């Protein structure tokens, strides 16, 4: 269960002054559901997801994940979250197995549980062929599978994906999409951000449209289609965000 309550994040930049990256964002996502966060680059998606994963601390507001507050209990929150993004790289000098084991140990798994968990994940993701290969020698697809194994090793009830398919080839992207769907089917709470509308249509139960740090619209895909009398998701986003973009253009 994820519940964001008025999440806000402000950064200070020497040249640009105060930047409001995320402002008063609230939403919730239940187990067995996928929540899609949509928006342009710089809209605040990554910052929001990083706050949920407790990598960044909110300036205001908070979020509760599996009953733990991201501000008060960040370590307990992280123990319940699997976080995957294009920025979460692998340690090049560890083998795929060592890497997954390392994160298992950081999550406090005992050696027996860790071994069975790692064996299970490696079988499930068909990773036994490159178990002992160093991460810097893996192909992009193998790396992505290892990253997935890393997020799964502690069997977290909540999964956070930040543009997980950006820059990946079709086959690797398919693996990721399949994996996200699988997470939902296993009853996990999933939130993910993307630019790719086909992924949203295929996966998301709920979507939130974020622009300039603010959550402008929220609902199920059919609800949004009805509200905006438009089938194409991309067009819906343009309708939601467009008036703001135009007024910003005139103002500047």
């Amino acid at each position, binding site marked *: 269960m994820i519940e964001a309550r008025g999440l806000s994040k402000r950064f200070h930049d020497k040249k640009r002054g105060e930047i409001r990256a995320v402002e008063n964002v609230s939403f919730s996502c239940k187990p067995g559901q996928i929540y899609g966060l949509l928006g342009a680059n710089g809209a605040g998606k990554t910052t929001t997801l990083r706050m949920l*994963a407790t*990598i*960044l601390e909110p300036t205001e507001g908070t979020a509760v994940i599996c009953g733990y507050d991201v501000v008060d209990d960040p370590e307990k929150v992280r123990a319940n979250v699997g976080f995957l993004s294009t*920025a979460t790289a692998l*340690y*090049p000098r560890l083998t795929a197995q060592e890497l997954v084991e390392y994160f298992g*140990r950081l999550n406090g798994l005992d050696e027996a549980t860790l071994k069975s968990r790692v064996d299970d994940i490696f079988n499930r993701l068909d990773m036994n062929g490159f178990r002992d290969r160093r991460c810097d020698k893996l192909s992009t697809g193998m790396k992505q599978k290892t990253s997935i194994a890393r997020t799964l090793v*502690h069997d977290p009830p909540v999964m956070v994906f930040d543009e997980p398919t950006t820059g990946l080839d079709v086959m690797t992207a398919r693996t990721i999409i399949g994996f996200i769907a699988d997470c939902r089917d296993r009853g996990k709470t999933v939130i993910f951000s993307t630019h790719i509308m086909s992924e949203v249509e295929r996966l998301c139960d709920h979507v939130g449209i974020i622009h300039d740090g603010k959550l402008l619209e929220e609902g199920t895909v059919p609800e949004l289609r009805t509200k905006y009398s438009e089938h194409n998701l991309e067009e819906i986003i343009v309708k939601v965000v467009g008036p703001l973009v135009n007024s910003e253009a005139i103002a500047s």
Partner: protein
Amino acid sequence: MNLHAVGVVYRKELTEWLRDRRTLISTVLVPLLAFPLLISGVISLSAVLIGSAKKEVPKVMIIGGEDSPDVIAALRADKELEVIPYADDWKNQISEKQIRAAVEIPPSFQTSLEHGTPKTVQIDYYEGEIKSGFGAEHVEKSLKAYRDDLVKKRLEAKSLPASLIAPFDIKQENVAPPEKVGGASIGSFIGYMVIILSMTGAMYPAIDLTAGEKERGTMETILSSPISRLDLVLGKFLLIFSASLTTAILSVTSMGLSFAYLGHSLSKANASGAGIQMNLGLMSVVAVFLMALPLAVLFAAVLMTIALFAKTYKEAQSYLTPMTFVVVIPAIASIMPGVELNPKLALVPILNTSLVCKEIITGTYHWNSIIMIFASTCVYAAAAIFLAVKTFQRESVLFRS
């Protein structure tokens, strides 16, 4: 703080560190090989050069002296000199290193000797040229022998004892224990090397574990795991500290062995037994390490904190290079003659440890300053670790863009 988590981070960092070829070179190979190569290389090279210069029978030329056959005969009789025929360009020949020296015998030298009116014999050589210097020395030795012989004969002729001109003898004798003699010659150098190397040993892993991690994109990965930032920073710190110690231990071991070998071969070469003493007491080496320990903690924490601000490996390198000077200057200052430990200097980090190491190696233990220096360096080190932990908790540093 969760010690188990710190251990997990440390083990993983150690695994990665040992698999990095650059690490092996900077932490293991360089300190192991640098000293034997540097010390034995430089010293045996100079020994070879000096040895061959000493062994050479110098070519010398005699200028004048046609009316003084005795002194010329004495010079020619010396087997350690090769007297070559006179040539007008003798000055040039010395400068061109064709001959090593020339002896100018003044006119009617022999007659003046007989009449007891002293004249000056001049030896011409090439100052600063080692072989010419040895040649001039040889000529002087030969002339002195001729003079002593002349004095002896004169005394005998007048039935006077030889002690008339040498009523007493003078000799020099070392009374300082061998450890102190060895310490004084290389003590300050050892302290200096331990300090410099414990910093250079920490430098590479400090960059790799912070800016390197940001550059490779693994920082976000590790921050998304449930480990606390305190445990993470401590695990990383311990690895950097270990690297620093490994480099220092390896280099001092290798340096000790090189010096022992050098001392051994020098005392063997010097048959009189007055060979340069190069042995260091094991106790003093251990004491130097103990003193350098908090300093290594300080280096590891400071380097890590600075490197954490950088986004890339290269940027970190450019931040840390000036640090080398910050460390080298006080370390060198301690080697300077006349810089001695005093209560004020005992509070200056790096310089204090360097100075106290110099004393320890020579077997001098001023417990008050030792305790003060150890304690003050521990305080600096603790402050540096605290700063490192605080820096690691700052988002603006971790996600600097």
